């Protein structure tokens, strides 16, 4: 991992912009729909985020900063995992290129999340980036039924863009009112592990069971 920006506002601005970019469906969802032939009436309406697949905006806003970053990092780890699995349904090279580019963006975003976590007060004890290994997925395990897998992939990508939109809004709230919420205060981390553990437990209640990291 490269060196991190040590300027909080600058890093926060980067995260906001990245999230704003990644929320655009033209980056992933639209090419996927087109390549899979899902751009037909009667199919498009079934390409909606499965409820509970991703943390809702309210759930993200209710998280403390530290827990928010952890949730974000873990969720994006699962997204990377799913995108890798999605490759099997994308035969064309240009579509694969789009997929790979999106994965690189997510990896860069995760790095910035890690850097932001280091800037949060009290982060010295847990500055390691959240493991991005296999874990619970934001959507059901892909089936062997190509059609169902296709729809699931579409729903997964739809949820992903919505999720990044919510993430961008949360980051924007960070920038607009740094001390509006205790949970979003950068000084919250000063309470160190105890506080973090409490938030982690609360976070588990906020997130759908089996969908978000513990």
């Amino acid at each position: 991992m490269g060196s991190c920006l040590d300027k909080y506002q600058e890093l926060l601005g980067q995260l906001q912009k990245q999230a704003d970019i990644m929320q655009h469906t033209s980056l992933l969802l639209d090419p996927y729909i087109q390549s899979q032939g899902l751009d037909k009436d009667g199919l498009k309406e079934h390409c909606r985020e499965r409820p509970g697949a991703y943390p809702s905006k309210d759930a993200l806003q209710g998280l403390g900063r530290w827990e928010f970053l952890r949730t974000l990092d873990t969720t994006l780890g699962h997204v990377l995992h799913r995108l890798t699995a999605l490759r099997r349904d994308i035969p064309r090279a240009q579509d694969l290129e789009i997929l790979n580019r999106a994965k690189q963006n997510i990896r860069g975003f995760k790095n910035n999340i890690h850097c932001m976590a280091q800037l949060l007060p009290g982060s010295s004890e847990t500055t390691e980036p959240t493991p991005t290994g296999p874990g619970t997925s934001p959507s059901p395990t892909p089936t062997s039924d190509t059609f169902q897998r296709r729809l699931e992939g579409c729903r997964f990508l739809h949820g992903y863009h919505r999720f990044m939109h919510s993430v961008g809004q949360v980051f924007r709230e960070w920038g607009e009112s740094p001390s509006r919420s205790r949970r979003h205060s950068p000084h919250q981390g000063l309470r160190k592990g105890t506080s973090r553990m409490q938030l982690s437990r609360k976070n588990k209640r906020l997130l759908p069971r089996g969908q978000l990291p513990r």
Partner: protein
Amino acid sequence: MRFEWEVLQNENPEPMALFSVFQTTFLLALLSLRTYQSEVLSEPLPWAPESLKVFINSTHQCLHLQWSVHNLAHHQELKMVFQIEISRIKTSNVIWVENYSTTVKWNQVLHWSWESKLPLECAKHFIRMRSAEDDAKTPEQSFWSNWSSWEEVDVQNSLGHDPLFVFPKDKLVEEGSNVTICYVSRSPQSNISCYLEGVQMQGEQLEPNVTVFNLNHVAFIRETGTNIYCKGDQGDSIKGIVLFVSKVLEEPKEFSCETQDLTTLNCTWDPGSDTGLLKQLSQSYTLFESFSGKKTLCKHKSWCSWEVAPESQEMYNFTLTAENYLRKRSVHLLFNLTHRVHPMAPFSVLFTDVSTTNATMTWKVHSTGNYYTLLCQVKLYGEGEVTQHNVSVEVDGEQLFSGLEPDTEYRAQVRCANANHFWKWSEWTHQNFTTAEAAPSEAPDVWRNVKSVQGHSVVTLFWKPLSKLQANGKILFYNIVIENLDRSSSSKFLSIPAPANGTELNLDQCSYQIHVTAHNSVGTSPASVIIVSGDPGNKEVEEERVKGTEDGFSLSWKPQPGNVTGYIVEWCDRPRGPLCDLQWKSVGPTTTSTVVSSDAFRPGVQYNFRIYGISTERVPYLLEKKTGYSQELAPSDNPQVVMSNLTSRSFTLSWKDYSIESQPSFIQGYHVYLKSKAGQCHSGSEKAVLSDDAVCCKYKIDNPKQKTFVVENLQPESFYEFLVTPYSSVGEGPHGAFTKVTTPDEYSPILIRVILPMVFCILLIMIICYLKSQWMKEKCYPDIPDPYKSSVLSLIKSKENPRLTIMNIKDCVPDSIEVLNKQEGTRKSLTETESSKPTYLYLLPTEESYSGPGPCICFENFTYNQAASDSASCGHVPVAPKAPPSQLALLTSPENLLKALEENYMNSLGEIPAGETSLNYVSQLASAMTGDKFSLPTNPPEPALCSEYKMQMAIPLGLASPPSSGSSSLSSFTLLDEGEHYH
């Protein structure tokens, strides 16, 4: 051998059902008969199929049957036939019957597969079989065993509890295939709709909860497959399948193998369409050589390498096989290796001994064996030409090029092929070379322009750059030698560096011979000689008009009777520009016509051509002049017209400044348009309708040099509009704004001619009168004689009579002044009083008023001496002039007079009542104007003390004649006594 005989109940249900019933009945009857025969004629067969098992492969929609035959002896082999029946939905609905023949061994497990067109999940299937000994000689007399029991295949039981299923999942078919699809609904009451790529499909109900759809000739849509999906009317649940439709695998085309080095064969082909899908890789290719028995899997879709056998195998028989999941295709190729040699491109192409016209090219070829001869083809490109040579080569090649142009770049290329068995040419190998320079071969084309400036000739020499073929190298400079023909010893030398194409020479009036040569690094060109004669000899030549075309001007001239060495046509490419860009064209002595063309020629521009003949002495002389347009255009502007001589009946138009030479076409004349309210056209004009439908009279002037026109026959006090526009063969000028004019009335000029001279004469008379006023005054109003200068004095003096003396005005002491007040019209002065009676001012003390010495009052005669009024040192008695101002004006300025009067009056006689006062002074002396009446008095009164008679006051003109009555308004001045008055 297996045959397909499948009956779907959903295809034409009524006739099919009837046919099925009939068929089943027939078969049952036949089977019953055979069974009866078997039972009757013999014992049941001991080799009945046993342990029948059915396996399902849903992916391939296949049923795999497995059974065995018991009771076979050890090592016994028996040729048997197994009849297999497959029913759908119910056992009586037989959809497939097949006899499967095979040799059965002891303890052998037999297999048989059947692929269903209807997905197995769509309906139950039942299978049973029986066997018979396969007697090829009398097959009709075979005796069947008993049927096995029906084996039921029901995949629906294992589907789960989803409300809806669609089958088959992820089926892979070729484009153009027929596919059967079905859905299985757990709730038969729901309304299910199915779609293929968004388009609803119409199905047929197979069972209450099963509907099938037959897709015929399915098409390829995309690599990711065709989406087929079903959903209920609630729309909450959607299930579907992806049908992978592959393009049909094509046979490889243009399969060919060749070698470049006899060690490797390169085989190529056209693979056709790619059949790759999400579920299927692209087709693969394998290359098999039958003589060697070798096989290789090609890594590329369109070519493959094959190592040539070291044992010098000459013949090769290749089979190229294309294969994908669904199909195989193969092509074959048999050839002799030596007939498939495609040599590599030659290399080490070099040029040696490159001179001005020759060069030698050498090259090498790759070795393809000692016994091969190559045929090489050499092409040489240069100066737009191509030459080709064929050379037989074994190792090295060589080709001599001759007849080349000096200083020219050539491009040579060479390729080779097997000379014995031509297969293909190698790739070309290119190389460029440039021949050496040579001296310029041609003299530069020289022309001159001569101007005489202040007794000198300014000669501008022009020359055209030599063409590449003529220059034979890069021209470095031009040498100019100027020889004075009149003084042969005098010559001048100039060197002009390239790329100059001209120079200017100042020469005197002598004749000169000018030599121009071009030089490159190798040598000198032949000289171009031109004579500049001291006598320009420019004779006047009539200019002719020529008509140009898009291709240029076709010029011709009369052949000259004398000897000429050639002709030169001269013109300017840009005649309107400051630099005319002189051009010339030289033609031979036998040519008397040419076409002059230039990219610079523009429509609407007049070009002038001069044709010179070149004498044998190389002296050019002007022969003809031509002028013309490459394309004439309509005049673009109208002349600036000046109107003059406007009368009530005519006016004159002139446009002297209009230049016909700078027009875009030859001006042939002018049209004068005249608009009038009357609309009548007189002789010499014709009616014309303008573009705005206005009607006017048109006068035509045929002479372009006539630039004046008198418009006549006009009406006085009428409004006219006129326009002058030029016309040429292609049209006339623009109909722009008309100029407006109104004719004057008929009498004004006459009146002006009369009145003006009269006014002039009057003024002249007045001026003369003014200038002769002194004379007139002397004639009409002579000066009052000065008594002191009177001749009388001299007479008196001469008589020495002391008593007779002229009264000095100083001795005159007036005692009173009679002031007459007169009301006269509305005119009132500041001194106007109410009383009309004369007022007497007693200047001398009287009994009543005298109380002491009074002020001296003197009277000043302004008429007599105006300057005296200003210099008078004593008080003045103001006098309001009785005479009209006009009369007074002749004598003095009224303003000064009035002012002086008023001021003095107010200062001296402030007590005098206001009112118009008329003071009339009557001279005590004689008045020249009054004749006898105002003759010099013989008894002059004695002057009073302190009174002064200075001058005489103005005398009204009315007094010039005797008063008509005694009641005159004249005032009497009492100068001596109260009773003594002069009237």
